[in-house]
């Protein structure tokens, strides 16, 4: 993998407004009733010592993507030798192995014709040097996107200077969406 893209989301700034969800639906023309990203409100602790965190979640574009490994036809693949995982509709049989393989349940049978679709990190914008639609629309500027193996990038700098976590790292999938805590 030559380029490792990552998304870094500051949970201390996220207010769970849902703009990222709307931006994704608009940008990618996601059909009604379906979503490629979603917001989780996680409350932990014991009353009155409660802590709430908002997380904007999506496909983690894992470095060790089990969906790509399990796809029997090669429809799930890495875009241009990066960690961005895409699905080639012309190769997808709709067997749903990738849905079962994703510990984050980030995949969905989306198209009426029955192929699997998911978050693409807006690779069509990324190849023109733009941020994904969700990142560029965030009103609190809590979302960041960039190249993780470039030490000077904003995402690398944030992960150097702040405490962070990823979701369920125990799956071994090596997710690439980071949450600042």
């Amino acid at each position, binding site marked *: 993998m030559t380029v490792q893209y990552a998304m870094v989301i500051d949970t201390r700034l996220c207010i769970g407004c849902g703009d990222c969800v709307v931006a994704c639906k608009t940008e990618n023309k996601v059909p009604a009733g379906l979503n490629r990203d979603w917001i989780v409100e996680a409350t932990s602790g014991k009353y009155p010592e409660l802590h709430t965190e908002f997380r904007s979640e999506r496909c983690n574009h894992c470095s060790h993507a089990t969906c790509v*490994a399990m796809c029997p036809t090669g429809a799930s693949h890495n875009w241009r030798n990066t960690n961005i995982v895409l699905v080639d509709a012309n190769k997808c049989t709709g067997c749903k192995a990738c849905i079962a393989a994703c510990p984050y349940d980030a995949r969905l049978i989306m198209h009426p014709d029955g*192929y699997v679709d998911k978050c693409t990190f807006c690779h069509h914008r990324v190849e023109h040097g733009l941020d994904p639609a969700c990142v560029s629309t965030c009103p609190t500027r809590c979302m960041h996107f960039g190249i993780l193996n470039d030490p000077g990038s904003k995402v690398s700098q944030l992960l150097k200077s702040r405490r962070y976590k990823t979701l369920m790292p125990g799956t071994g999938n090596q997710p690439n969406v980071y949450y600042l805590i």
Partner: protein
Amino acid sequence: MLEELLVTPRFNPKVDPLLGIWTWEISVYLFFGGLTAGIIVFAALAALNKKDAVRSFSANSLALWAPIVLSLGMTTLFLDLEHKLFVFRFYTAFVPTSPMSWGAWILMIIYPVTILQILSTLRPGYPLIAGFVDRISIGRWVLDLTSRYQREIAIVAIPSAVALGIYTGILLSAFNARPFWNSGLLGVLFLVSGLSTAAAMVILLAKEKAEKHWYVRMDIGLILVELVVVALLLINLATGSEQHLKALEYLTSLNGYALAFWVFFIGLGLMVPLVVEFRELVKEHRVLALLGPILVLLGGYLLRHITVNLGQETAWQDYRMEHNPQLLERVKLNYKTEN
């Protein structure tokens, strides 16, 4: 405490609120796949050991059932595909990390193997059909050739069928995202269960008493092995990580699969046929002779059904939905009536 709520509605069909991507089509396919593996193994064993006299049905006629049963399974597998026109894509790639890709190619080996098996025993097994084939010179040549290499065909058939039987379990066990499935023991369990269901099928179809009895003894052994493998699987879950322990709860909770698993699968699908088949060896009974193998077949299907459904309910995450779609519909309805 940790409570995780979905603020925006995800509700992607078949993913939320519970994963439900595979239903009866896949359970039926896995059942028929295992049954086919068993049929091929028993037909090949009978041919290898030259048991035409004692086990004439399995040596000569059983192989014909393999492609029929497998095709039924392949039909339900096809029904499950959401992008049906692209089914050929299974055969434009081989992905070594994907058990499903292995399975697709194993099935491509199984079909010609079963055809060769049938041809090699067509004359003694189905003399009427063989008579027609023998009338054509090329047909006679094919039957001569395949019956001459009957032993070699059987030697190739056994490992191919074992691969098929194991694959039906590994297909599920390779998903680490679904803790209940994530044990290689599923491969062994599905293979043993497949052999057991095939033995049950022969007990129902064979005419000779000696042959039926051989398979009753074989099935008793297979059921005992199956019980051991199920126990190992449960031990594996009970000594596993948090995700495995949560998965095991589904088998111990009455709200989950406790009834289906313990009463119907272990009880009616394994223990009762075990007792019935033991009794059959001592004293024959016309009704019980049918009941045992029928229960084994039902138990075999139930094992796949429970495994496929339960596995999809187990996951690493446990989100609760705050969004209530019915509530939204009511708001929309009120809005319409007010305006």
